[in-house]
């Protein structure tokens, strides 16, 4: 009796130790001689998700010795889990760390990434010269390439044909001045001329600033929002929003999208992922290229997510093989045609089938005029949230441009380390 009780107590104690330890045990990959399994994490949850899943499925079918396991979670989750996962060696072999290309800089700093060496021509290599050049520049540090683009697209101008017709406007605007006039004309009866978002969003305001001849930082990473040109570039749209109420103030990306898909806004600047939702919401949708800016030139935002390999992967060769497959011409063409997204390759733009698709061609035709947002700017994420987002939030709520840009300039320069 007494003995059994002691034994029971011992079991309780042992169990508790086991329970506590199980929380920190690290699982190791299988060492059996079967096919190699590569873990892949991405945050592609939108309408393009099936396209990425198809790439993985096709790869697995054609590569018996390497199997890729795709895990899709929200960008928030990936951004939170990945740094510690990669540092402790328990993370995935390959991942798209963030939809923010600047994320690569941080991972390079912590030596978390494998330099990509399998480049060259032919289907088994990564054809870097055929991939969007700005992304390859963005992902190259000290002469070494650390990622390939997992996707690449430009932003276009979405417009509601029904609302345009009701306002007596026949065509989408072709210049930024026309866009401003149209936005005013379309704002009436509970409808906004344009749906602008300034936080938690794909960047719409930088496009407007570029169109009006301004920018956020110069090539030395010093803020230029307070310069004469910088202040002037903010004036038109800040006034249109603050005084003429052409757009609600302070919207997140999701709110801006729902306003447009509810038929309560006539225009929006957005990427191809938004098109299926708007169509199924019954919007008589038009997609046009971004109007030309005050200097007569076109400019839009290039949006990309990187695809990188963990420095601690056990299968660097196979992981690079997957990247080569992922970025290859045939695979990207199939992806583009099934998802309506432009591809990460420049040599597909002339492909007759892709050219024939009006949505893809609208987005891919602007590639030459697209700029990445804050490329290689130190602390880019904070420059965006504390500098740009705050600046736009203030001027659209009526703070004077001089006051707001002064504060933004000092915040941004403090973050980028610019001293002038």
């Amino acid at each position, binding site marked *: 009796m007494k003995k059994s009780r002691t034994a029971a*107590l*011992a079991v*309780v*104690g042992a*169990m*508790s*130790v086991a*329970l*506590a330890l199980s*929380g*920190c045990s690290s699982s190791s990959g299988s060492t059996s001689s079967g096919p190699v399994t590569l873990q892949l994490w991405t945050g592609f949850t939108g309408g393009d998700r099936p396209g990425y899943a198809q790439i993985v499925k096709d790869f697995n079918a054609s590569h018996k010795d390497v199997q890729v396991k795709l895990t899709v979670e929200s960008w928030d989750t990936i*951004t*939170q889990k990945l*740094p*510690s996962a990669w*540092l402790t060696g328990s993370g995935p072999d390959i991942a798209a760390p963030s939809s923010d290309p600047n994320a690569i800089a*941080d*991972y390079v*700093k*912590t*030596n*978390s990434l494998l330099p990509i060496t399998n480049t060259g021509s032919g289907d088994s290599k990564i054809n870097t010269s055929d991939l969007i050049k700005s992304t390859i520049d963005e992902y190259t540090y000290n002469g070494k390439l650390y990622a390939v683009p997992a996707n690449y697209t430009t932003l276009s101008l979405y417009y509601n044909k029904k609302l345009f017709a009701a306002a007596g406007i026949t065509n989408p605007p072709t210049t930024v001045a026309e866009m401003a006039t149209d936005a005013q004309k379309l704002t009436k009866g*509970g409808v906004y001329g344009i749906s602008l978002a300034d*936080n*938690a969003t794909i960047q719409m305001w930088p496009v407007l600033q570029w169109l009006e001849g301004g920018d956020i930082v110069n090539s030395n990473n010093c803020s230029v929002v307070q310069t004469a040109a910088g202040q002037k570039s903010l004036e038109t749209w800040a006034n249109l929003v603050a005084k003429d109420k052409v757009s*609600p*103030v*302070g*919207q*997140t990306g999701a*709110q801006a999208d*729902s*306003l447009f898909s*509810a038929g*309560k806004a006539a225009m929006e600047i957005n990427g191809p992922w938004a098109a299926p939702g708007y169509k199924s919401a019954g919007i008589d949708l038009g997609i046009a290229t971004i109007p030309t800016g005050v200097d007569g030139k076109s400019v839009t935002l290039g949006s990309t997510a990187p695809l990188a390999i963990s420095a601690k992967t056990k299968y660097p060769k196979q992981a690079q093989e997957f990247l080569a497959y992922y970025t290859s011409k045939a695979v990207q063409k199939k992806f583009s045609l099934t998802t309506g997204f432009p591809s990460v390759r420049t040599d597909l733009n002339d492909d007759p089938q892709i050219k024939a698709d009006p949505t893809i061609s609208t987005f891919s035709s602007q590639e030459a005029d697209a700029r990445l947002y804050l490329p290689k700017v130190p602390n880019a*994420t*904070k420059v965006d949230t504390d500098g740009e987002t*705050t600046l736009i*939030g*203030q001027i659209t*709520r009526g703070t004077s441009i001089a006051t707001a840009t002064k504060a933004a300039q000092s915040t941004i320069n403090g973050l980028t380390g610019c001293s002038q």
Partner: protein
Amino acid sequence: MTSEITGTAPSRVTRGGAVPPASAESPARRRRRRPRIAPWLFMAPSAIILGVFVLFPIVRSLYYSFFDWTVGASTQPFVGFGNYIKLFHDSQFWNALRVTLEYTVVSVVLLLVLGFITALLLQGESLANRIVRSVFFFPTIVSLVTIGMVWKFLLDPSIGLVDGLAATLGLPSVAWLTSVHLALPTVIFVGVWKSTGFAMILFIAGLKGVPQERYEASNLDGAGRWQTIWSITLPSIRPTLLFTSLILTIQSFQVFDLVYVMTGGGPLYATDSLVNLLYRDGFVNFQTGYASAISWVLFAIIMIISLLQLRLFRYNDVD
């Protein structure tokens, strides 16, 4: 007060029931000692889990707060009180502290008042009372995240139900969550809406504990309704009042879920609470050291305010 404690505490001798023998190892004593392992073993699972998942992280966060600790960085330099000094000069911290204080003061006062009033009205045990009570209590059992999401949709100025109702009444749509002036009051409203039922239940429990004779006595003395509430009810439920305000204060100071879901701290940091700031610095910007410093300052503030509340209600006094 102190004499009471020493006076009633049983001595070892009386508890053992016998004077221990002078010799070291009597058989009786050996038998008594063995089972003493049992409590420890039974406590072990909780103690280990608590140690690994609560105590260790707490100690660790204090340690981090003295370093410029960035997740993933190759070096984690020691900065002493650097993070705390930086905090002192950080306008975002002061903004978050102001927002948190506003949120806490307004919420706690409203909750105490509304909780007490609803408790007075609904303390009876009739069926109607029970039903209304359940309705009031219902939001308490729903997760804050769910409530935040639902209210966010309800208040959306373009697609929300509130906007739709306003439109049918000919009222303009209001940017409840994107206006710098309205966002915090709106979040406070939702927080109060959720927790009123909780405060009410605590007060009802307190009210049930008030001896009926006191009411009868005050009735005999000819006290009016308000006088009874002021002179009998409120003093009698002082422990409940203290407990409720303490719990609500601590809860409000740690407001995060609601803010994170409804506004994300925006617009322009108008609803950026301390925990939201802590979350952003720690889990978005990976500045663990700085975030740890914020959490310890938050802890200190809650500690001080709780002590003040205890003092205010003179809880140490003999009732």
